[in-house]
């Protein structure tokens, strides 16, 4: 059994908040660079150039890449041999989030009551925390802050099994095209196929932290990722949604077994500021 003190988790989560807000991951920067070389619209090339400049300024000056520093969404892999001392894991993550957002001067974007009062909590908490129980003695915490603009473009399609591959392709392409400039393209497309309605949505969002260029291990799903990407990039939406040939940087499909009667398909989009950071203990 490995024991991890509450305070250590608070400290590491605080650091994750800052890294995610200021440092765009290298795979995203590379994908944006290659997009800038491929883009056929002059306006699109100018936008991609500015996106790369923005990432450099944010990193060098420790200014948030985007003012929407997001809902703090955490994916936790909790080893069966790990225990947290001095408090709960949930409390530690929330406390780390509160400190990270306050000390990094990141925007508090959470309201406590969703419908009526809509008053800002001014701490950016509560965080949204998804825990998977895994074997072993490691604790891995990934923070993927999610901005409202891309979050609002999430869609769930409860397809019929007979809709098949064409139905999935259509769902993904339609989601990106209808979203237009709202989710800050070029986007990353996460597609969750299978499970149940709620499991598919989580799967599609978690897919967004997969490194760009890494494909699904199964050949047919990897091919589906490539055909979704090709079709999305023919849509003309382009950088910023003002027209161009690069609408998405990558597509990640994730799958789960599902009921004999269902074919749930969820599509989550990440903006080009595809921020995430991981710590493993």
């Amino acid at each position, binding site marked *: 059994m490995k024991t991890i003190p509450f305070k250590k988790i608070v400290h590491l989560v605080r650091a994750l908040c800052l890294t995610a807000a200021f440092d765009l991951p290298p795979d995203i920067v590379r994908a944006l660079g290659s997009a800038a070389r491929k883009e*056929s*619209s002059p*306006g*699109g090339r*100018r*936008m991609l150039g*500015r*996106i790369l*400049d*923005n990432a450099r*300024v*944010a990193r060098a*000056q*420790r*200014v*948030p*890449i*985007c*003012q*929407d*520093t997001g809902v703090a969404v955490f994916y936790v892999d909790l080893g069966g041999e790990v225990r947290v001392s001095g408090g709960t894991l949930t409390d530690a993550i929330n406390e780390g989030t509160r400190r990270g957002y306050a000390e990094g*001067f*990141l*925007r*508090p*974007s959470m309201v406590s009551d969703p419908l009526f009062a*809509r008053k*800002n909590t*001014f701490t950016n908490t509560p965080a949204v925390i998804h825990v998977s129980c895994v074997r072993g003695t490691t604790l891995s915490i990934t923070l993927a802050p999610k901005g*409202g*603009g891309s979050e*609002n473009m999430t869609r769930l399609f409860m397809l019929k099994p007979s809709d098949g591959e064409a139905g999935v392709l259509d769902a993904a392409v339609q989601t990106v095209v209808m979203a*237009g*400039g*709202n989710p*800050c393209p070029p986007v990353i497309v996460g597609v969750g196929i299978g499970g149940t309605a709620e499991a598919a949505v989580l799967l599609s969002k978690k897919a967004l932290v997969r490194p760009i260029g890494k494909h699904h291990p199964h050949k047919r799903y990897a091919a589906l990722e490539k055909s979704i990407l090709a*079709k999305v990039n*023919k*849509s*003309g*939406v*382009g950088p*910023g*949604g*003002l*027209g*161009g*040939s690069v609408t998405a940087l990558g597509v990640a499909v994730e799958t789960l077994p599902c009921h004999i009667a269902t074919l749930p398909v969820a599509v989550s989009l990440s*903006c*080009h*500021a595809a921020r995430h950071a991981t710590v493993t203990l």
Partner: protein
Amino acid sequence: MTKERALRLCPPLTRDIVLSLAAGDEVEITGTIFTARDAAHKRFDALLTAGRKLPLDLRGQILYYTGPTPPHPGTGRFSAGPTTSSRMDAYTPRLLADTGLAGMIGKGNRSAAVIDAMIRRNAVYFAAGGGLGALLGACVKAARVVCYKDLGPEAVYALSVENFPATVAIDSRGNNLYVSGPTRFSSL
């Protein structure tokens, strides 16, 4: 490359300037613009519904849909890119009709009702780069709260901006780069 071609705009905008702008034009804005997003729009709308005046005069002015990060107390730096404009669509036609607002900066397409109101009221909609918060924040030289301080990042700020880059996305004749741009590059 864009520097020579961008049109320099200094608000308040006159009717003639608004009418001269065409979808696709690159502009750089220098002067004062005002922030307002979801919660401030809701309050504006409630005031107008009650037949009252807004706490600021928007005639000829530009509203920027943004909720900046808190400024770093040491460096003064902060991030301030555009938010999705369509969330303001429900409030915009009345705001254009009742206040004389001349311009809006945001990201993403607008509703048919907003575009109709823009044509009737001679208004222009600019797209700023979504996700360029650090670069756009650096164009802001000073910021002060005008009203609704309790809303935190959703308060109304007067921002003094220099060479703030934007693109005319929808002009006062209803030409729309969010439609014509993707159509031009689509090969579906």
